[in-house]
């Protein structure tokens, strides 16, 4: 004869779980194992019966329920609810979209980003200053040598 069912196998037997055929055969033939399973189930059944004693009078219970039902079937409310949430969600989306659009329009187009100069401006200005500081700038030496009288005579000729 095979050995008795272990605790897990007995638990499995108590809940109607699967047992290997050999173990099932043992259970069917073993008074001790069957008694162990039955004893537990009897304890549970005793406790369940205590709960049955607490159950209400079912006619009264039914009357309480029927007496508290709303007079109008709930279907119209539920249909309204079914559409209400998607409708509110759509309205909120449109409102947000329109609001955002108006805000963008009011603010004007975003300014184009300023291109970063490849040569530093300070460097260019420094080069220009150094050139202007030199006396002998090409094509400007004529003006350097001219006298005020010459200039007056020249301007008087152009005006006449």
């Amino acid at each position, binding site marked *: 004869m095979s050995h008795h069912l272990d*605790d*897990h196998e*007995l*638990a*499995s037997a*108590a*809940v109607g*779980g699967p047992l290997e055929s050999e173990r099932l055969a043992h259970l069917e033939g073993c008074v001790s194992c069957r008694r162990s399973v039955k*004893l*537990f189930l009897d*304890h*549970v059944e*005793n*406790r*369940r*019966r*205590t*709960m049955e*004693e*607490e*159950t*209400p009078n*079912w006619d009264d*219970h*039914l009357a*309480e*329920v*029927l007496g*508290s*039902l*709303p007079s*109008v*079937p*709930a*279907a119209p*409310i*539920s*249909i309204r609810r079914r559409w209400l949430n998607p409708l509110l969600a759509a309205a909120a989306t449109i409102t947000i979209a329109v609001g955002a659009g108006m805000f963008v329009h009011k603010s004007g187009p975003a300014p184009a980003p300023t291109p970063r100069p490849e040569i530093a401006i300070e460097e260019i200005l420094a080069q220009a200053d150094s050139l202007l500081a030199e006396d002998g700038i090409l094509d400007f030496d004529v003006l350097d040598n001219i006298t005020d009288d010459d200039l007056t005579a020249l301007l008087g000729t152009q005006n006449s």
Partner: protein
Amino acid sequence: MTAASHQPALNERELVDRAKGGDREAFGMLVTRYQRRVWLVCRQYVGADEADPASQEALIKAYTRLDAFDGRAAFSTWVTRIAINTCLDLLRKRRREGLRLVETDGDDHSPSLDIPDERAGPEEQARQRQTIARLREAEEGLSDRQREVFRLRFYAQMNLEEIADSLNVHTGTIKTLLHRAVHRLRRELGDIR
């Protein structure tokens, strides 16, 4: 006289359809079929004292939400789910209000409620009373989920598939939880014969 009373042999689907149309008698027939189940489920969550109002609230909710019942699950499963959610809402409300929470037990621990089999002799009755108290105590040592599944299976007498559907978990998970619960309870009660 309503439509339901003309055809006493209406099946569940027909009763639901009629109740959706406002036939209270048809809904009453559904309540008659399932109020015991709903009450026993509520009993496991909120205890005996609050099982009556909780189960009534659950059944009224079911009526007001009948249009949401699409018939994919059995009506019994659907109404059981509503009962469980109603009880969980009640327990959350209790927690918010700072009232004593009995969600882990659902019992009021009154020894007078441990009613043994009256057919048994005095000694046997005393032994049964002791065993019931030990079992109830041992259930407290289970995890919340194990206790919930154990009670729905053995006290609310739901089958594994119904429990799985009602709690929205796989049947395999229910089997595992139940096995562990029974294994632990058997160990706790080991010396009681």
